[in-house]
């Protein structure tokens, strides 16, 4: 059901852990839906120099967390904000349609951690990444959205 790349990132996840004195921390998802992702960022001069994560969730959730942290390392904050869940899923050679909702969390975790960084610096964003959809959306809504997408 999962691609080899997903299984690789699941069995050997990159960047698991925490960053002490992180510049931005974001936590998204809820246990009710089955996945929670917490992301830590170290940001230097607007560039993400390190990223780490902790995830409670399925294979897809762990693999997308791992891939997302790989993708944003070395990127500027602005570039990282443009990463979509689809891009993360594509980098993993795709996810089964029922698992696309798990990849939303990766995108939202990046946005949430960056929003936290901005807030800490007193910077405001026009596109408010901190308004995390996955946290407030009910499980059913997320599910329906992807049912439609995959239909």
């Amino acid at each position: 059901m999962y691609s080899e790349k997903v299984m690789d990132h699941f069995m050997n996840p990159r960047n698991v852990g925490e960053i002490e004195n992180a510049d931005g921390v974001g936590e998204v998802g809820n246990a009710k839906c089955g996945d929670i992702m917490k992301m830590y960022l170290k940001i230097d001069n607007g560039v993400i120099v390190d990223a780490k994560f902790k995830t409670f969730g399925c294979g897809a959730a762990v693999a997308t967390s791992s891939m997302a942290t790989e993708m944003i390392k070395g990127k500027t904050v602005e570039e990282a904000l443009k990463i979509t869940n689809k891009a993360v899923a594509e980098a993993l050679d795709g996810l089964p349609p029922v698992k696309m909702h798990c990849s939303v969390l990766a995108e939202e975790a990046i946005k949430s951690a960056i929003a936290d960084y901005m807030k800490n610096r007193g910077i405001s964003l026009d596109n408010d990444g901190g308004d995390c959809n996955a946290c407030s959306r009910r499980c059913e809504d997320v599910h329906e959205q992807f049912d439609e997408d995959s239909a």
Partner: protein
Amino acid sequence: MSERFVYLDHAATTYVRKEVLEAMLPYFTEKYGNASTIYSIGRESKKAIEEAREKVALALGADVKEIFFTGSGTEADNWVIKGVAYANRQKGNHIITSSIEHHAVLHTCQYLESEGFEVTYLPVDKDGLVSPEDVRKAIRPETILISIMFANNEIGTIQPIGEIGAIAREKGVYFHTDAVQAVGNVPIDVNKMNIDLLSLSGHKFYGPKGIGALYIRKGVKITNFMHGGAQERGRRASTENVPAIVGLGKAIEIATKNMDEYNRKLIALRDRTIDELFRRIPHIRLNGHREKRLPGNVNISFEYIEGESLLLMLDMKGIAASSGSACTSGSLDPSHVLLAIGLSHETAHGSLRLTFGEENTMEDVDYLLETLPPIVERLRAMSPLYEKVKEGV
């Protein structure tokens, strides 16, 4: 990958036993006759079907005329619930079932609600037990069917079927039990237990998939399921799947004969697994009743981790198991059974079901006990929920 393969998902399905396969094989090739014909190979098929029917009847303490073969356990459940509902509409429109039934029963009941029937879904206690008194209180003048599963497929809890049967009989309401998980594991007597209707499925006791049976007590009003030829006395038309029927018959015969020894063996594997996991891993919970449970069933929730991740890692070590987590069900909700016994969504997501079977050994248990704790440890180390617990202590 792992060299070792340990199958711990016998509640999902079993392999076909060698003796069963051997009994089936001739009916694919040389004994291919249609059982409705009068020449010799047709008569041979007919005879084989009737012998299988006798074996099923014997296993349940029923009469051969009360056994009808179906295409699966799901089909038997669909037939019995829709069939009793439609045949007894003049008497009433109310059905009583439990909230932890298999989807084959639950979704059929939900369908009937859309057809104007009323369904009471009885709650269960923390161990997954239905209270016979709750059943009694739920009975109304218009109640036409009580359907309570014999043993639960996820948590293994065995219901007080005899007590519920006695109440149903006293009140004159038909009593059905989905015994798909119980047959071959628990002694069943439809007369002593006052069971009027019972569903079973071949692939849970080392028989083939895609074959089941429905026991219908003589005199019970139920509509025919498949309209067509005269097979199964016109109640379930269609040319019989002779090899599968023969296989089911052979499998139920062996399962009934071996039940005591089989149970003793499975209980030893089950109990050691439960006791040792509790000794080795903190923050876990046993789901289902500790004693009133299927001999081969272990269902444990590991707090702070998610079931699918657990299954994937076990699979990498060659262990096949299952979970009630949402991420394994394809929906976003965890198992309705785990929620019904009062688990939070978090705890339900972290459930693992291990179901033992005939080929398992104590060495398999040893291997599981070596393999599982480090996996749980690793996933917890990755979990943001566990972090909070550690900070808390």
